[in-house]
Each structure stands twice: as structure tokens, then as C-alpha cells.
């Protein structure tokens, strides 16, 4: 091989490596603050809350966690077995392990393969997964996944699909705007078409919302939907059953009950439900769209002015 050809090949390899994100050292910083929250029992007990400014390009979820906690791993380091001595286990036939979410979305990949960029919200939770292995989307990282702080210019549009009177929908848009999220209100007809290119918030009573393909998964068990609640038909309409972590109903909420929950179909962007048993329930659900109510929650219900974290008792 001639010297010129060798130089060309070397240059091509270097360019390809650089394009693939290869290089020496930790790489450049990504701007913004990445936060880490460690909880247990479906977010009921907060163990650690910390943050890091401008993480390096090579920062990953496991490296961030490793610096803040005592960590043990399995399967080549990709699976977290214990954090600060709290270890995954099987007790009384129930399986408990560590799971993590990035910006409110359950990670389909191991913590070593997920980068942590400035603006990301990383949440580890130690939970009983016997009756729900997957909880694809949670509401506890509000205003993520809508804010998309770490996405830069590649943000997905946020659409509020309005299935009720205008007021709750505009209130939802206002609450998103207060968090810096620019959302548009979509007409009712949009409900039939799950949008793979947009984050959606379905606002309306359950009787209307359930016609959406993604929302309809809520009629299945938590093992399918990942949400520890379901709507049931009642004599005068609908009622909301709040489930515990073993997917058993704890209480049934009637008129005025609201629900905020996250769902996800496959790899599509998340769909949130801001719904209720009736119009009053929808308004109650809209009232839950604030950090104080949603932080560290998988989903949340409201009844008679009381907030009920789901799974109930979790």
C-alpha cells in the first residue's frame, strides 16, 4: 500500500471515529444540570437527591450513580444489584429490584449505556415489580418528558389533545407554559391518531379519552399498562379503582375523581392522561399538574381534594 493511500485510510478511520463520538479523555461538557433522585417503594421514600453541573460527554447514568452511592453490579456491570446496601431480592415470592427512568421514561437499556446530559432528570427507584415489570412512563419527573431540556434543537412537539370543554385544556397548556414548555391544543379529531412524532397530553373525561389507542391500555392490568389504576363502569358512569403494588383495588373513587398518568406504546413518545370520572374529575386532574403533586410519583389520583399516589400505599 502506498504511503498516500495509507494516509488516506488513516484519515478516513479518524474521521469515522470522530463522527461516532470517539476520542480521548472524557470529552466536552454538556451544558446544564443533571439531577439524580434515588427513592424506594414507588417513590414513597426519597433516599438521595443530588445534581451535577455541566456533565462531560462521556457521563453515563451508572457513572453518576457510582459517584454518589455505594454500588454493586451484575452481568458485566450493566445491571445495578444494590445501591447503598439496598439489594435486589426475592422475598415472600415478591421480586424487588432497582429500576431507573430518564426524564420520566423507563430506560430500555442498561445504566452503563445511557448517557447523562445536562438537563436530564435521572430517577432510580427500588420497587416491587412482581405485578408490573414495566412502567414505561411515569409522571414523577415533571415537567419532563415535555421540557426536553437535554434534547437541544431536536425537541418533539407537545400536543394537548382536547377532549372536553376548552377550559381544562387551556389550563393544561398554561401549566406547561409555566414550566417553559410550548404546547399546542389539538382538535378532538386528533384523538384517533396516536402521533409517533409528538408528546401528547390527552385531556378529558375517561368516557372520551378511552377511545385513544394508547389510553385504552389503561383498561388492562398494571402488568400491561404500567399504571396502578383503572376505570370501571359504574351505574352512573365511571369510577376509578386505585390499586396497590400487588394490583389489588384499595379503594374505588366515584364522581369528581381525577387521574394523571403516563403511558407509552412501544418506542413511541410518551402519552399522558389528564382525565377523570367526569368533568369535575378532569379539572381536579389538571390541578395536579405541578411539581409538588407529581414529584417522585408513578401516577397520581385526586378525590375530594385529596391526592392519592399510585400505587396506593406505595
Amino acid at each position, binding site marked *: 500500500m502506498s504511503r498516500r493511500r495509507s494516509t488516506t485510510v488513516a484519515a478516513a478511520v479518524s474521521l469515522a*471515529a470522530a463522527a*461516532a*463520538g*470517539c*476520542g*480521548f*479523555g*472524557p*470529552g466536552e461538557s454538556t451544558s446544564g444540570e443533571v439531577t439524580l433522585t434515588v427513592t424506594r417503594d414507588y417513590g414513597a421514600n426519597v433516599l438521595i437527591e443530588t445534581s451535577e453541573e455541566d456533565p*462531560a*460527554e*462521556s457521563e*453515563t447514568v*451508572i*457513572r453518576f450513580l*457510582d*459517584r454518589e452511592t455505594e*454500588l454493586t*453490579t451484575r452481568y*458485566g*456491570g*450493566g445491571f445495578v444489584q444494590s445501591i447503598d446496601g439496598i439489594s435486589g431480592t426475592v422475598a415472600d415470592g415478591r421480586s424487588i429490584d432497582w429500576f431507573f427512568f430518564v426524564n420520566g421514561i423507563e430506560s430500555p*437499556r*442498561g445504566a*452503563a*449505556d445511557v*448517557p447523562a446530559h445536562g438537563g436530564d432528570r435521572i430517577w432510580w427507584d427500588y420497587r416491587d415489580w412482581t405485578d408490573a415489570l414495566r412502567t414505561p412512563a411515569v409522571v414523577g419527573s415533571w415537567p419532563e418528558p415535555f421540557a426536553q431540556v437535554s434534547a437541544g434543537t431536536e425537541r418533539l412537539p407537545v400536543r394537548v389533545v382536547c377532549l372536553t370543554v376548552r377550559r381544562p385544556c387551556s389550563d393544561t397548556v398554561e401549566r406547561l407554559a409555566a414550566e417553559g414548555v410550548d404546547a399546542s391544543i389539538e382538535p378532538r379529531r386528533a384523538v384517533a391518531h396516536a402521533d409517533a412524532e409528538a408528546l401528547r397530553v390527552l385531556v378529558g373525561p375517561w368516557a372520551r379519552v378511552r377511545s385513544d389507542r394508547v389510553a385504552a391500555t389503561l383498561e388492562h392490568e398494571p402488568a400491561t399498562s404500567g399504571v396502578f389504576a383503572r376505570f370501571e363502569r359504574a351505574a352512573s358512569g365511571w369510577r376509578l379503582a386505585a390499586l396497590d403494588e400487588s394490583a389489588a383495588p384499595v379503594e374505588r373513587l366515584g364522581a369528581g375523581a381525577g387521574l394523571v398518568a403516563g403511558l407509552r406504546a412501544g418506542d413511541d413518545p410518551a402519552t399522558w392522561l389528564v382525565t377523570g370520572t367526569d368533568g369535575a374529575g378532569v379539572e381536579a386532574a389538571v390541578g395536579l399538574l405541578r411539581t409538588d403533586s407529581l414529584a417522585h410519583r408513578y401516577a397520581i389520583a385526586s378525590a375530594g381534594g385529596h391526592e392519592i399516589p399510585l400505587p396506593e400505599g406505595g
Partner: protein
Amino acid sequence: MSSPLAYAPRGGPFGGVGAGAASLYLGALAVAAFAFSNPIVLAGAGAAVVVAGLGARAAAALAASARLSLGLGVLIVAVNAITAQRGDTILVRGGEVPVLGQIDVSAEALVEGGVLALRIAVVLAAFAVHSACVDPDRMLRMLRPLARHSALTATLITRLVPLAAADHARLREAAALRGPAAAPAGRAALVRRLVAGSLDRAVDVAAALELRGYARGAPRDAGPRPTSRHSWRFAAAGAAIVAVVLVARLGGIGDFDAYPTISIAASGWTLALATALPLLAAAPFLGLRGRHG
């Protein structure tokens, strides 16, 4: 030409030591390597194995295991560097590779790989000396009460390495004697033949043992085979090493953490432990010379 790992009577104080005492002595050094990840302690355990090997006149076995460990060690370090995606000191960002995922090489992963390689090297060296110096027949005799109904297990434990080593030497010699026109026998072909052959040989020995009444226990008139009067020295040294390792482990001496940044306990106690291991390994040889029986 015999393999350096094959058993041969070697004389010296270790030559006539009973299988139990020899196994306790050398096994204690392997236990030390398994019990600690601290490189200082592992270096001490390695020095102890070298002392034991030289004292047992098994320098060739040590050299053979070192050659094996070197290749294995490079492989372990390389694999750990690309699979262990932890550690704060990123040296190379390898990007995302299909199937393997993110590939970053950190200094901590390299060090952890090095520690694993060192541990393997120490354990291999201890077993190499054991294989070269401890009579497999004595091992078989010792194991009889423990594995009376499993001659195959016993022979695999005691005979596999010596048989494989001896067969390897013979196969290599035979390959070399085929003449200049013969195609060279590759290492992979030799290893394949070796593994298959050694298992066959171990099964043959097991069958012979069964036929000769291995499972019935020792004959009544078979008294204990005479062993060296120095056996107790090596047994005591082995027991002392195990005790020191246990106490040190329970006392939290010699901690090591590779992640998120390398943290090596290098206190006086750690250094004392690393020094104590070769001293304890040398102790049974002190004051003894030549062949004793």
C-alpha cells in the same frame, strides 16, 4: 521430555510432605488471592507462591504458569476494559458499538482488569506448584474417604492436570518428530487433542479404580503411607496463612475499590499483611536443607 506441570519427585523439604499438608499449604495461598482484591496484598500472595515454588524446587512450574498467566492476563485486562463501563477517569471514548453498547475505556476498568489478572496468576501459580510437587496417587488416597463412590470425580480432580501436562509433552514431541516434510501441528489442534485425550485418560483411570474396588475403602492391612516428618510444618504454615487472611478480612484490612475512582488501602496493616504472607510461606523451609524424609 516431561511437562513442568507434571508431577515428579523433587526432593527437598517439600518432597515428602503429605498430600493433605501440601494442599493446605498451597491452598491457603490461593485462598489469600481469592480473599483480597488489594494489589499490594495480591503482590504479597504472589511473592508467597514464588517462595513456596522455589522452596519446593518447582521453578519450572512457576515459569510455565507465568507464561500462561501473561497471555490470559492481557486478555482479561482487554475484555474488562471494554465491558466494565464504570470509572471516572475516561481514557478513550469508543462510541457506541452494536451489540456491545457504549465502549469507553477508563483507567479504573484497566486497573480492575489488572487486579483480576494478578489474582488469576497467583492462583494458577499455586496450583502449578501443587500439580508439579504433590503426588497424585497420594491425593487420590486422601480423597478416597471424601469421594468413595465417585472414582471419576476423584480422578478428574487429582489426575486431570498431571495427565494433561504429560500428554501435552508427548504430543508436542511426537509432532516434532514427524519430519521436515510434515505440516506443522497448530497449537489449537494440540490443545483439542489434549483436552479430549485427558478426559479419556481420566475416565480410564476411574474405570480401573472401580474395578480394583476403590469404592470399598482401603484394605485393612493398608496402613498410612509414611510422610515427611516436616508435614506438620507445612500444615501449620497453611493454617497460619488462612488464620491471618481471615483475621485481616474480618478486620477490614486491605480494602480495594476500583470504582468510581481507584481507592487502595495502603496502611501499615496492609503492608504488614503483604509482608507476612511470603514470610509465613518461607517459614516451613527455614532451618531445613537437602532431602529429608
